[in-house]
């Protein structure tokens, strides 16, 4: 297997050459900016191209590539005048990310025309053969704007597990979507700590007019749930009809035995696990977890009571 670095370097050479051939007189700075080169890397790649060409390998057979007074010169390389076609994963990934951003309503206009043009080249007339839909709850645009400008927002948020509604001031860092849900990450002034909120559980937002200093940070689109010491733990057996749970929840697989998949579940609120067990019915069994068992019984009685004739 050849290293990824070799593949990337070759790919960049085979992309840079056609562009320089098509844009003669291009400056070193322009080529560097466009293809992410440092000047030294560009010079090294041009040197390399200079010693390659067609059999015979004498003057006239080899390509000509050098920097002349800040201008990038490439000659005798017409067989590399076209960039390489996209691989299917490359085409898919470009189109999918473009469509994803468009579906959020947060894309620049140029993205829509770019995706249309690319689609025509890759899929022909079957433009709608690829659909990416990141169904977006209200406020994503506002929160993104506030995160970019460093504006503190007041949110009215209802927690999923407890159903508790709070109003809190948040310094928004980023909005992101993963596994079909949107989240807001930021510094919560009420908790005085970093928090992640599900955006669809935000009922209302309001700009406070207050600002904070935006710090560039690497923000992964991940919820990054790490079990805390005070978390509730439970061990559950998932039978065939319930195995999907292991894909959806951050569980730890204990073993895959004859009676089903045994997983360890950890959650900040026993209700999360109890609700899941309730809907799974006989497809799952609680093996261990007293707090969850008690909460599940409570939940059953509560629901049955609400259905009882008055």
């Amino acid at each position: 297997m050849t290293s990824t670095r070799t593949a990337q370097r070759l790919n960049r050479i085979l992309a840079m050459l056609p562009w320089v051939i098509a844009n003669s007189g291009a400056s070193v700075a322009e080529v560097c900016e466009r293809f992410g080169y440092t000047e030294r890397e560009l010079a090294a790649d041009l040197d390399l191209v200079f010693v390659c060409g067609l059999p015979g390998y004498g003057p006239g057979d080899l390509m000509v590539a050098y920097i002349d007074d800040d201008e990038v010169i490439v000659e005798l390389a017409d067989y590399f005048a076209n960039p390489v076609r996209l691989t299917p994963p490359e085409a898919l990934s470009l189109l999918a990310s473009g469509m994803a951003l468009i579906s959020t309503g947060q894309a620049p206009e140029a993205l829509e025309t770019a995706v249309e043009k690319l689609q025509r080249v890759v899929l022909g007339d079957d433009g709608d053969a690829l659909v990416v839909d990141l169904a977006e709850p209200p406020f994503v645009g506002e929160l993104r704007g506030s995160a970019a400008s460093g504006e503190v927002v007041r949110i009215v948020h209802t927690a999923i597990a407890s159903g508790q509604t709070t109003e809190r001031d948040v310094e928004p860092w980023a909005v992101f979507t993963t596994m079909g849900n949107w989240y807001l990450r930021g510094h919560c002034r009420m908790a005085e700590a970093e928090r992640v909120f599900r955006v669809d559980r935000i009922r209302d937002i309001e700009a406070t007019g207050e600002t904070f200093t935006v710090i560039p940070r690497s923000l992964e689109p991940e919820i990054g749930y790490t079990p805390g010491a005070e978390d509730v733990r439970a061990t559950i057996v998932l039978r065939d009809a319930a195995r999907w749970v292991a894909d959806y929840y951050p569980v730890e697989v204990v073993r895959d035995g004859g009676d089903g998949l045994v997983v360890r579940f950890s959650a900040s609120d026993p209700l999360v696990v109890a609700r899941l067990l309730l809907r799974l019915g006989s497809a799952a069994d609680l093996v261990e977890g007293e707090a969850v068992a008690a909460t599940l019984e409570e939940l059953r009685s509560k629901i049955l009571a609400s259905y009882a004739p008055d």
Partner: protein
Amino acid sequence: MQRVIERILNLLAFLLTVGRPVTAEEIRTTISGYGQATDEAFHRMFERDKDLLRRLGIPLELAPTDGWQVEHGYVVDPETYALPDPGLTDDERAALWLAAEVVRMGGQVAAPDAIFKLGGAPVTGSGEPLAAALSEGSDDLGTAFLAIAERRHVLFGYRDKPRRVAPYGLVHRRGHWYLVGEDDDRTKVFRMDKATDVRAGGHPGVFERPEGFRAADAIPGAPWEAGAEDLTAKILFDPAVAWWARRQIGNRGSTAETPDGSLLATIPVANPEAFIGWLLSFDDAAELLEPTELREQLLALVRGEV
């Protein structure tokens, strides 16, 4: 690395210009960089180089060198090699780059390789407070995509059964990739992360997409819309959760507010299990009024009878 790249540039320049299939032996004796190697070393080197070329998307194929098909050689067709120019502007390239940086596929940070092929673009997106993670963007997905574009069959295992599907489209919705296509004369939907051993069929152009087909319509927007039942459910939501219920139902049913602030909803249900699962997320703040059999099904689940 330098020597590998030089050798491959020489090989590729030759294959793009020679206009006929070239045997491995001819490559070995003609192309600068292979000559000194022993049999075994040449074989290893050449295998690696072929891999690398194909990884970049270069169409390296085998073809007979003569009419008797005794001997085979390597060809790179310059026309297949070239990316058809989509005619992108610099703004459009920059927008694609931004999208590639904001949207991750299966946790992967976008590599600029594809953007370079399109003519490159200045890096823009860092510091953008928006991020999206699409479900796993594995090679399987690329294979399915290739099959769609070239109208090949897709072959894979699904629920322990081998499938041969005429793929009409790929849809990412609710956090998953779905393949829509015809299997056994019926249009079906498959979750890509459940498909195993995904391969594209050998022949392009083997099916026609039904006219007016829209992949987007094949994947329901809510889990309870994915099924074969045809029920209409009436639910009463408590005032405290009315906003949340309304937001989730959207335009998938009709809702009306009662004088005390509760929400009365009428929703078509195609998948009762998924629907009940969703209703139970409201704990005791939602009551399923109709139909009776669905209500009984829910109560049996709550009582722990099923």
